[in-house]
Every structure is written in structure tokens, then in C-alpha cells.
């Protein structure tokens, strides 16, 4: 890619990560949440991939790291869902609503911020790993 594309993508990609962090953490206060922030994180890395090539990005976010991050995100959702059962409530109960925060701040609404973080990890790593496989070139079978 030309030098204009490389310079601009190098400036914009960290800004996208900062905005994605804002959208994920303020999911219970304003528009946004887990999915939207996760897709934005994946797009920040895909912009770097399109400008600099697959090898440059794959040695920073390897395939194994992507799989581990994705599994940890899904595991966090299940663990937070089981916490309610240890206190005598049902599965998926929202624990800690009022004693732990006031509405309108980041630390509010019970276990909703934890769900948003888990979903962000799941969605961003999923789309990055799938994109690695779709964009790789392979020689056709020698027949």
C-alpha cells in the first residue's frame, strides 16, 4: 500500500481502540455495549492488516492468543452467570444492583459491565481469527 495509507492507518488505529474502550465500558449508561465495542476493536486490527500485510499483524496477535482470548471471554460470561446460584437465587440473576453503585455511572447496574467485557473479548477475537483464515492465500492442489 502507498505511504499515505500506511501513515493514516497508523494514526487512526489507536484512536479506534480508545473509542471502543469507551463504548464497551459505558454500555449501561449510554448507547453501546459488548457487541458494538467488540466489532470496533476487531476493525482496528483489520485496518492495520489491510495496510501492512498479514505477516505484520499475525506475529503480534497470533492464532493461539486469539483462541485463548475468545475462550476466556465466553468462560467469563458463564462464571458470572453462576455466581447468583451460590447465594440462593436462580441462574443468570443480576447480583449487586443497589448497594454497589448509583445509576448513571460506570460502576452501576449489577453485573452488566462484566457481561459487556466478556462479550467484547468473545466478539473481537472471533472476527479477527476468522479474518485470518479467509484472507490467507493457498496454492491449489497439484493435480
Amino acid at each position, binding site marked *: 500500500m502507498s505511504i499515505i495509507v500506511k501513515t493514516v492507518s497508523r494514526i487512526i488505529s489507536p484512536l479506534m481502540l480508545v473509542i471502543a474502550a469507551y463504548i464497551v465500558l459505558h454500555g*449501561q449508561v449510554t448507547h453501546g*455495549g459488548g457487541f458494538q465495542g467488540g466489532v470496533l476493536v476487531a476493525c482496528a486490527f483489520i485496518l492495520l492488516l489491510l495496510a501492512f500485510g498479514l505477516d505484520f499483524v499475525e506475529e503480534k496477535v497470533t492464532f493461539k492468543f486469539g483462541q485463548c482470548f475468545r475462550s476466556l471471554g*465466553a468462560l467469563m460470561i458463564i462464571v458470572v452467570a453462576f455466581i447468583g446460584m451460590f447465594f440462593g437465587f436462580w441462574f443468570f440473576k443480576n447480583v449487586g444492583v*443497589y448497594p454497589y453503585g448509583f445509576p448513571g455511572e460506570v460502576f452501576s447496574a449489577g453485573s*452488566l459491565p462484566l457481561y*459487556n467485557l466478556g462479550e467484547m473479548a468473545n466478539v473481537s477475537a*472471533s472476527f479477527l481469527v476468522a479474518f485470518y483464515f479467509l484472507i490467507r492465500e493457498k496454492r491449489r492442489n497439484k493435480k
Partner: protein
Amino acid sequence: MNEEKILRITGIIAIILVTYFLILTVTYDFPTFGLPVQRVGQYYIENTLKDIGAWNAVCAIVWDYRGYDTLGETLVLFTAVIVVVVVFKVGLRERNEYNR
């Protein structure tokens, strides 16, 4: 005209007829745009601040009131990425032929 052309023209005419009848149904038989008929949505708007303490009603619905649907959708996303990874793995016979 051969068989293929007859089939294509029949398909296009069928789709145009279905579109015409659907537009007539939508204009005259559907409720007016802008007057909603749901009552569950009204309950969710009024009681989110009292039950959950969140200002965003959509996030509260997705993770608290209808949490099981989101759990199923997370599972579908997980499975789709496993499908993408498995389709591109080289099988054992192909790897033996490639190495020979």
C-alpha cells in the same frame, strides 16, 4: 427459446407478482406506522430504573430480562468460528501427498 430462458422469465414474473400483492397488503392491511401495539415494551421502559438501575434500557433487556437469548447467540458465534477454522485445515491424506 430453450428451457432455461423460460424458467428465468417465469421466476421474474412470479417475483414481480408477489411484490405487487405484498405492497398492497402492507399499505392497506397493516397498522399505521407510528402507533405501536406492544405493551411489554411500555413495561420495560417504565421499570428499568427501578429493577436494574441502568439508564440504557436496551442493554438491560439484552443481558437481564432476555439473558437466555444472548447466551444462545454467543454459542452460535462460537460455533461459526469453529466452522471457519475446520474448513481450512489440511486433512491427513492431503498432508501425506503434499509431503511426498
